[in-house]
């Protein structure tokens, strides 16, 4: 079998046994890229073929493993454009902490993946480059915003990747592409070098082909960093040690608000089968209520856009990348006009829509009615989870209300696009960790995913349940035909 189809832990065994060399891995990954990238378009630009070198000295848990990173994560000297015109030509002057950690672990940074512009979207269609396509059906979206990172792993163009998740941007594309994606607890992974979208919600996390690789990659990137004042000084457990522990007696909550009349029947059926499977392994299920679920999307689109409007104020044609041509004229109309034209031309439609929405909810006269109220409802959403977690270890839900939808289907209807994150958004509001892992396929052959939500810093509980489920089901071994 070509090595690009394997996981990092499988490759490590092959390297350790001397059966294969690092060059073998890189060659197979490059060949796969050349065969499939024109169909999938997972990368924001050509990967670093010229720079990618085997690191003979590399010694670490990810030694010689090619890893792709989302285009909003800084890597020194490389284009880092957030798939946005306004960052055209921006080369990061430093490595993000996660990139430093990857390099220290021996990994090879293989390339930057396509994304929704500034992570604003659930389909990878708002990229200024091109939409990424779902490897399981090239007419469908891969999900978003980390659609490129999910598709690159699903298409076996790379062994593992990093994404970022503000309202579901790791878990939803993982679900739609049939791979594993984890959003860690807020504060678990440093965001130093992640170009900010909404600072109270953003987290970086791993995309992998199976749970063991996910635990391996999280262990590499997690930990306190004094350069991110929201990273938490707590020791990083050895996540691999929990894998293999049985799930007997684990208490799993099913929130009734996530299983409603009219939900996608195949999504519902896959969750029912997963529940039966886990029950047979000894997990104990009970229905619970998260009563403020219906408000989460509204709260999110106030808080996330408010924070985004502030974070994106720095892109004004002065320091990074793009400036409108007229801003450089000698007889230019002045600084304010240069800002407006650079931002008007540099941002795409969804970015403008969100900046305007966020500016509106923060503006004088509307702050209390929207922003301040949303922060209070956020407290209620968090309290719902606190209450459930006093009696349960994890919560099981679908990841996405539907399987992958067609490219173009939701582009003219922002609200329906926003609602595709309905199962993932509350988790960010409450700062919790959550994973999406494959749990079946539709009749048409599209992957389905389920979400396991844990307590704050409860990643071990998540991996424990997820690993047992994965090892007792065939889904993670399926590959798209490309």
């Amino acid at each position, binding site marked *: 079998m070509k090595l690009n189809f394997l996981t990092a832990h499988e490759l490590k065994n092959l390297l350790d046994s001397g059966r294969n060399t690092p060059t073998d891995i890189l060659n197979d990954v490059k060949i796969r890229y050349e065969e499939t990238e024109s169909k999938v378009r997972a990368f924001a630009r050509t990967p670093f073929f010229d720079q990618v070198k085997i690191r003979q000295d590399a010694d670490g848990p990810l030694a010689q493993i090619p890893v792709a990173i989302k285009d909003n994560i800084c890597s020194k000297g490389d284009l880092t454009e957030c798939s946005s015109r306004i960052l055209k030509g921006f080369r990061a002057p430093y490595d993000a902490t996660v990139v430093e950690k990857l390099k220290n672990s021996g990994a090879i940074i293989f390339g930057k993946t396509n994304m929704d512009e500034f992570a604003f979207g659930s389909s990878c269609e708002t990229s200024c480059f091109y939409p990424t396509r779902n490897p399981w059906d090239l007419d469908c979206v891969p999900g978003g915003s980390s659609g490129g990172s999910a598709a690159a792993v699903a298409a076996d163009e790379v062994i593992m990747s990093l994404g970022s998740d503000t309202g579901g941007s790791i878990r939803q594309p993982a679900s739609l592409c049939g791979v594993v994606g984890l959003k860690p607890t*807020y*504060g678990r992974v440093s965001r130093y070098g992640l170009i900010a979208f909404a600072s109270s919600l953003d987290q970086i996390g791993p995309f992998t082909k199976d749970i063991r690789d996910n635990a391996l990659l999280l262990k590499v990137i997690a930990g306190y960093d004094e350069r991110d004042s929201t990273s*938490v000084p707590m020791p990083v457990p050895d996540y691999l040690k929990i894998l293999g522990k049985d799930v007997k007696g684990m208490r799993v909550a099913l929130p009734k608000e996530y299983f409603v009349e009219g939900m996608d029947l195949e999504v519902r059926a896959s969750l029912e089968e997963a529940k039966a499977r886990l029950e047979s392994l000894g997990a104990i299920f009970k229905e619970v209520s998260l009563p403020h679920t219906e408000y989460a999307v509204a709260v999110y689109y106030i808080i996330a856009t408010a924070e985004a409007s502030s974070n994106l104020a720095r892109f004004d044609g*002065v320091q990074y990348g793009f400036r409108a041509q007229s801003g450089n004229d000698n007889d230019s109309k002045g*600084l304010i006009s240069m800002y407006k034209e650079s931002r008007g031309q540099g941002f795409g439609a969804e970015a403008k*829509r969100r900046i305007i929405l966020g500016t509106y909810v923060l503006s004088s006269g509307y702050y209390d009615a929207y922003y301040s109220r949303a922060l209070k409802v956020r*407290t209620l959403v968090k309290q719902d989870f606190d209450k459930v977690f006093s009696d349960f270890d994890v919560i099981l839900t679908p990841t996405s209300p539907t399987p992958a939808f067609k490219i173009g289907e939701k582009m003219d209807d*922002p609200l329906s696009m926003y609602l595709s994150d309905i199962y993932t958004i509350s988790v960010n509001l409450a*700062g919790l960790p959550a994973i999406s892992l494959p749990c079946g396929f539709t009749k048409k052959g599209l992957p389905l995913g389920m979400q396991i939500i844990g307590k704050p810093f409860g990643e071990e509980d998540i991996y424990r349940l997820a690993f047992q489920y994965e090892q007792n089901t065939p889904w993670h071994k399926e590959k798209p035909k490309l």
Partner: protein
Amino acid sequence: MAISKEDVRYIANLARIGLSESEIEHFQKQLEGIFEYIDQLKKLDVSAIMPAAHVLDIKNVTRPDIVKSSLDPKLVMDSAPAKQGQFFKVPKVIEG
């Protein structure tokens, strides 16, 4: 909540985003739909609830005041669209 084209124009100016007339019209309709949706928050009584700005129980994070090397100015300036020496160059701000 009703949103007028004038509102969109006013907010776009605050956000320093230049919009075309057709963009203003388009956003006005879409924002009206989005506000109709988020207005459901008004159903809740939140008078006794404390706001959650973020979820961590940490405040006022400080670190020792130690001099360290900073970013390479050349690398930082390399991505600037217009520069002169070690300065970002912008259109004239103050009329002479």
